[in-house]
């Protein structure tokens, strides 16, 4: 995930901070959906959990696993 965020604006991975801005989140979601060929069903609750890199990683993994099972 950090690599995806780092690619936004061509940053080095250690330049990516833990907090995620809404633009970065849009970027992340867009990229993940493309790579895994899926649509992430996001609501405000999921969004609130995704305001940090760790939260985003956890939430996205949950969703991808859910999509795989579904």
């Amino acid at each position: 995930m950090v690599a995806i965020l780092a690619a936004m604006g061509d940053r080095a991975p250690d330049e990516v901070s833990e907090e995620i801005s809404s633009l970065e989140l849009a970027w992340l979601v867009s990229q993940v959906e493309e790579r895994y060929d899926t649509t992430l069903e996001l609501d405000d609750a999921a969004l609130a959990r995704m305001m940090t890199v760790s939260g985003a990683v956890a939430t996205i993994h949950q969703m991808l696993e859910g999509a795989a099972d579904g």
Partner: protein
Amino acid sequence: MAENPGEWASGALLDGDPGDPCLWMGGPVTRGELASLVDARQGLLESAGLRPGGTAAIRLPPSLEYVAVLLAAWRIGAQVSLLDHRLVRREVDNAMDRLAPQVVVTADSVATAPMMGYAQAVARAQTRPGGRPAATPHVLIQLSSGSTGPSKVIARTAADLLAELGRYEQLEEYPRRGERIVVLASMVHVLGLVGGLLHGLHAGAELVFPDRLTAMSIRAAVAAGTEPTTVLGVPFHAELLTTGGGPLPPLRRMVVAGELVRPWLPARFTATYGVPLGTMYGMTELGVIATDLSGRNAPAVAPAPGMSLRVADGELLAAMPASPYIGLIDDTRWADGWLHTRDAASIDQATGLVTILGRLDSQISVGGLKVDLTEVEQVLCALPGVDSAVVAYDGTIEAYLVLREDGQVSGVEAALAEQLAPFKRPRRLRVLSAMPRTATGKVSRDHAVLRAAAEAQPAGTP
């Protein structure tokens, strides 16, 4: 007052073949269907007391409802203020107190989710006590992010809007009748409002709103039609689209505005899609000022037809016959027929091409949305738990602050959430035991110094 003060909107925006494809939001909306919706919303607004020469404030998310209500209010002959639906309660209340609209339109119910390209909304129109009719002939009111002091009330007349539509009409490479525009830019701000919505209605180009603001969904929206298609957005959207993708036959070009384009972006976009990334430069006060739709002149832009520009003391000035500001008088922004853009620029004397170099004040752009760092800092400093604060920008908004004895970061965060829309809030609050100062005793604004001070903090500070 003119006999029919709403006639400008009917003539320029609504009239036309009812069968024309007009909008696409999950499905087609013809000009005739839109006209019916506008009729219905006109009834809603009139029931709340809106009359020719009256005032209405609209605060709706991007939606078919927003389009219908806006057109209806204008057709009534009212003066419309547009408020971004992301503003928080306090910002909205402040705006309403200043504008004193007679009718306020908000969403009774909204079905949306993060990153949607449009929402399903149902409007509610309420009469606001103490509302005042229009005191000036302007039809559109928008609020700017103020560079010093409170935000400015920016007003445009019907003639101003029609003149801007005329400029778009003369731009050969801008979408024409029968083409499609995939609109990613906010319709509450000038790019999406005039460059997107009003131009589409006026010129007869279909306005397509993708289901979601993701690369996949935007590409799908482009590919869904056969007519030449232009994507209209901010540079962030172009960056989003260049991370993957390949040739999309209906795509003719993408046009972005709102902030400076990073140097590598146009070439990468064209390498991916085989079409140009065009740029436009404009302001809420004037609309589109200069363009480079083919990408030929990047990073420079050519003045739009009828625009007269010059540089004074490094600042770009645009000729404008009357001040666009109402309420507070600020003669540093418009004087003697010239609007001060607060952008640094240079003009090539031989070609007339303009290169925008950067900002001269504390305004920054977050995904195309303008934020005044001084405003953010002032809000922060005024909070009860805060002793002093500095807001810095280095790609993201960061705040460095010293708390009062009883102050807590969580309290500060909560207060900021109440007072500032999400896109204006600092991404990080870094607490210091004392503000670092320069040799002359002023608070330091040097990023490296501030960061070092924050990193030197003992454990326990967030």
